[in-house]
């Protein structure tokens, strides 16, 4: 399938989904308590204290969300900006703990989140790969085993030995994708991370994701491109202001969502929202 620009749209063929449960989310609330400033400082705190202002703000990012996902499912997650999609994913990854409720995850998760790739730009691509893997719980031997495959898949040549500050954003994204898919995750979490990279890499990425699906890995997928959600997922959930609105067949959920948002279902909306 192709869009008007002639770019292939990733598509995944699905085998039967297992009846084993991979992810259970039960009565989940997540509330953030944060300061108003992005970079809080002592200076601001003192100034505010003098004025007697409150500094903490709470945001209920998820409210009473419950669902289960079987192994082998590709679950699309859609919703407006700030609906809580990323929060849901980070809770499943164990990065953000629930405020109430419970999340149970069977197997190892690997994350490919939109919040930037390559954590230390002074270090080389190789060092970032190794450190990312060690932090995620792989052993040094396991990483030794996989390193060549990761480097080859990312296909960034000698840059792998250079500090990541010299990388283009495309190169960094490819390396991050390569790491995420080569950790052999039981559950792969992808947050808006498929739009980076050129057509050739996209195709390669889709192929690799197909492999993971064939091996009955579970995938959670957030994308603004609703067409990607329809093409790639077996099921879809729709979040609105932290509430689970609907769950079901991707096409139907996307339909209901676009209708609800009072947006016409034009091709432009579908491909790039």
């Amino acid at each position: 399938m192709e869009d008007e620009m002639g770019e292939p749209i990733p598509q995944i063929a699905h085998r039967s989904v297992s009846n084993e449960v991979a992810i259970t989310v039960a009565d989940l609330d997540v509330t953030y308590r944060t300061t108003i400033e992005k970079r809080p400082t002592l200076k601001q705190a003192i100034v505010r204290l003098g004025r007697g202002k409150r500094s903490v703000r709470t945001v209920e990012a998820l409210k009473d969300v419950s669902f289960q996902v079987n192994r082998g499912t590709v679950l699309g997650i859609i919703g407006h900006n700030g609906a809580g999609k990323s929060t849901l994913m980070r809770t499943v990854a164990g990065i953000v703990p629930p405020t109430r409720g419970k999340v149970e995850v069977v197997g190892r998760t690997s994350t490919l989140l939109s919040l930037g790739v390559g954590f230390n730009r002074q270090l080389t691509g190789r060092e970032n790969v190794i450190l990312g893997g060690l932090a995620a719980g792989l052993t040094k031997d396991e990483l030794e085993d996989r390193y060549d495959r990761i480097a080859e898949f990312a296909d960034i040549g000698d840059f792998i030995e250079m500090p990541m500050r010299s990388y283009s954003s495309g190169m960094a994204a490819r390396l991050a994708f390569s790491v995420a898919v080569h950790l052999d995750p039981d559950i792969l979490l992808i947050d808006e991370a498929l739009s980076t990279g050129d057509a050739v890499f996209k195709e390669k990425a889709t192929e690799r994701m197909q492999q993971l699906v064939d091996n009955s890995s579970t995938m959670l997928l957030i994308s603004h491109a609703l067409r990607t959600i329809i093409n790639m997922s077996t099921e879809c959930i729709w979040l609105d202001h932290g509430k689970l609105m609907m769950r079901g067949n991707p096409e139907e959920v996307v339909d209901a969502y676009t209708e609800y948002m009072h947006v016409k279902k034009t091709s432009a909306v579908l491909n790039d929202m």
Partner: protein
Amino acid sequence: MSETTETVSRPVQTFLPHRAGLPRLSTYFVTLWRRRHFAIELSRASMRAAHTNTFFGQFWLVISPALNAVVYFLLVNIIRGGNSGPDFFLHLLAGLFAFNFISATMSAGANSVVSGGSLVLNTAFPLLLLPWSALRTAFFRFLPSLIILLAFFSYFAFIGPHPVACDAAGACVELNTVHFSPVQLMAIPAFMLIFVFAAGLAALMATVQVYFRDTTQFLPYATRIWLYLSPVLYYADQLQPWMLKLEYFNPLFPMLGIWTDTLARGIMPPMSWWLGSAAWAFGTLLIGTFYFISREREFAVRI
């Protein structure tokens, strides 16, 4: 098809609300231990990136604190009218090196979490590994300075100018106050306490920095004042009695005291200093670590 490949056992992870802000500590520390190689590799990679492992990198690590010590020595001698000898110089050197280790751990620890970037945002792992990695780096940068200390000590013990004492009759004897002694071995447990203290400080500073991003800007001033209040530029036993009372609140007073007294002067410090040091060290470790862990879940949404 998938039914046939289900012999692999998969770990089940359950995420529940934290009780009293703390995760389950047994799980936390088991995971921490399993992933220790992350902290080690991060420290190694950072040292590589800073060229700490090259010849000139090492050279600089040794030379810069030594020059620092010389400057302070001259300063103190000018103020005091030039009556400090080699034994004081060694005390200054040892004290300054240990102090530098502590202040380096503090500033690197403060930066450890906020510079964790997308790793902190995207990966679930015990973040305590970040300040610990900073601690390891600071320790390996401290080690070369011991060589300087050994070199100066040997020089004063075996070769250097020795003060001379003459009696009324004009007969003089050479006095050498610097010599190796078994008491110096007690510097090892003394440093261990300093290390434990630094580990607590690293975690504490890492947490504070997340909430107050200007901490690292204030830190240099705070450490400088702390240095002047600690027995580095003077001997602990030179303090006025009223000052000594205040030093109950300075952890570095007993801690640097046991370190420099054993290592540089070869004298055994009083038991109260040992106990005070141990209390400060383990107290700080406990408070820093638990403060860090109780706030850790917020880091991923605050940086």
